[in-house]
């Protein structure tokens, strides 16, 4: 008898898997309920009443807008840098074999493999040794460093599936290197790069540990949230911001999944 996957799972397994998925999702859904609660001072459940007034209050808070704008700018520039560096690195590693190739892969993965606190404190001590004051650019520097890896992973996976004979064919037909890149390579890797860029954006937008070490007085959204978690000022506003942050990170992830779902290696399967 061959197994075609037609038989159904044992009930115990079904229940355990369902409970596991519920465990993963219920806490996030809870955030959505709390964004509407009328309770201001505590985390009381069930909410005594529901209201949408906190959305208006949050809308009129300049500090939230400043944090949001800083986060978006940092994420956009870090993503752009990571796209260039990650693609270059992936192209070099996948099209040629050279001495130290494994070391390059390790180098790219290291910033995300080591705990964020090590990356953060290393950058901070380097800034202080070099007398670089904290600024917008020190945040970008840290973010771009660990964003390279997600672009790199996506691009490498796509290069692996793109056959080298297409590039040779293009050259045979008289295209020069730049034309081949523009008309053959780029269309092939475009969706992988877009997916990698989305993930890099989400990663940067959400990053807090490295940012605490590389930001001076400026607040990105996660730093703002962390501040609220440690020293709560207005809990309902935090609830609303938390909900908005969840929605803002989900959209790029869903889109990145949609772009790469046909591939054997799917974007974001390693953060």
């Amino acid at each position, binding site marked *: 008898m061959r197994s075609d996957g037609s038989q159904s799972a*044992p009930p115990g397994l079904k229940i355990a898997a369902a409970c596991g998925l519920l465990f993963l999702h219920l806490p996030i859904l809870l955030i959505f309920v709390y964004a509407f609660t009328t309770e201001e001072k505590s985390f009381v459940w069930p909410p005594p009443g529901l209201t949408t007034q906190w959305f208006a209050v949050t809308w009129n808070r300049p500090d939230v807008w400043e944090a949001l704008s800083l986060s978006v700018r940092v994420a956009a520039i870090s993503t752009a840098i990571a796209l260039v560096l990650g693609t270059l690195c992936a192209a070099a590693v996948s099209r040629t074999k050279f001495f130290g190739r494994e070391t390059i892969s390790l180098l790219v993965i290291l910033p995300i493999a080591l705990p964020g606190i*090590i990356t953060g404190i290393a950058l901070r001590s380097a800034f202080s040794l070099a007398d670089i004051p904290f600024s917008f650019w020190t945040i970008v520097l840290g973010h771009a460093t660990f964003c390279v890896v997600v672009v790199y992973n996506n691009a490498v996976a796509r290069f692996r599936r793109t056959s080298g004979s297409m590039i040779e064919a293009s050259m045979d037909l008289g295209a020069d290197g730049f034309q081949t890149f523009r008309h053959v390579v780029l269309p092939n890797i475009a969706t992988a790069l877009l997916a990698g860029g989305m993930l890099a954006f989400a990663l940067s937008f959400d990053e807090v540990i490295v940012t605490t070490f590389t930001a001076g007085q400026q607040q990105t959204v996660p730093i703002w949230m962390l501040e609220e978690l440690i020293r709560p000022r207005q809990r309902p506003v935090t609830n609303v911001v938390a909900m908005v942050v969840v929605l803002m990170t989900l959209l790029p992830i869903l889109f990145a999944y949609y772009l790469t779902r046909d591939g054997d290696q799917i974007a974001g399967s390693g953060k």
Partner: protein
Amino acid sequence: MTIAALNNPAPAILPGSGGMRGALSDLFWRRPRLLLFLMLAPPVLWLGVVYIGSLFALLAQSFFSIDEFSGLINHEFTLKTYGDLFQAANLDIILRTVTMAALVTLASAIIAFPIAYYAARYARGRWKALFYLGVMLPLWSSYLVKIYAWKLILAKEGILTWLLAKLHLLWVLDGWLSLPVVGGNSLSVSATGTFIAFVYVWLPFMILPVQAALERVPGNLVEASSDLGASPGQTFRNVLFPLALPGIVAGSIFTFSLTLGDYIIPQIIGTSRLFIGQAVYSQQGTAGNIPLAAAFTVVPIVIMGFYLWGAKRMGAFDAL
């Protein structure tokens, strides 16, 4: 394709470009090493100089020491700072963190296995995609929001207490909280709370590699095992578990390493007893003792070094 595009098809052979661009393209064709060098230079310079440079700057500082009276950093080579790691208080921090990391890894593996196994063996088509997104979305959801969600759940007036009260099980919670070490005033300020939050936040990192390992187990192996008379328990122990082990080890690299380095979860949900990450943070911040902070960061690096070495020997990297 539109009519216009059919009437004016793109030329099959592009006109060669002359001038600078053509010359550059020819140069790259003749000297592929030059192109390779130019492609590698920016990322290697960035990561090598900015990142590795910073890491070495940090490691170098762990060999300095702090003058206990003036609070100034003494820039002379010494192993004294590493010696300070072995003070009882610091050893305590290291031991607590490693124990927590091990427990979190174990719990994640237990919760992850059924999800990964179901997704790998039984879920098909639409369900498979749903399972995949079901793991991916929590993985990528904001880290702080996830911690915040658990702060809401575990709070004294929160949903968990409410649920247990409805089920008339509050005495279980009170009994647990009155225990030493794991207990506390409420779950959100107890070691148990820290543990739950850690498991929750790192769980997806365990599910994905375990699922990848289980995808590679042919279904008929499991059937052969039961045809030969093994009970489901025996099949799990002798067939599934050994084959899934590389995936579990690969996942444990993430759960273990991430727990070792985290300082935000125990700060927000937990007791005042420190973890390695918090020790690093407070040493470099308020205490201004950069050498000791640097020496503390070496601890997870060394532990992870041994861990990765062991994992590699078990073939865990093929499951990543």
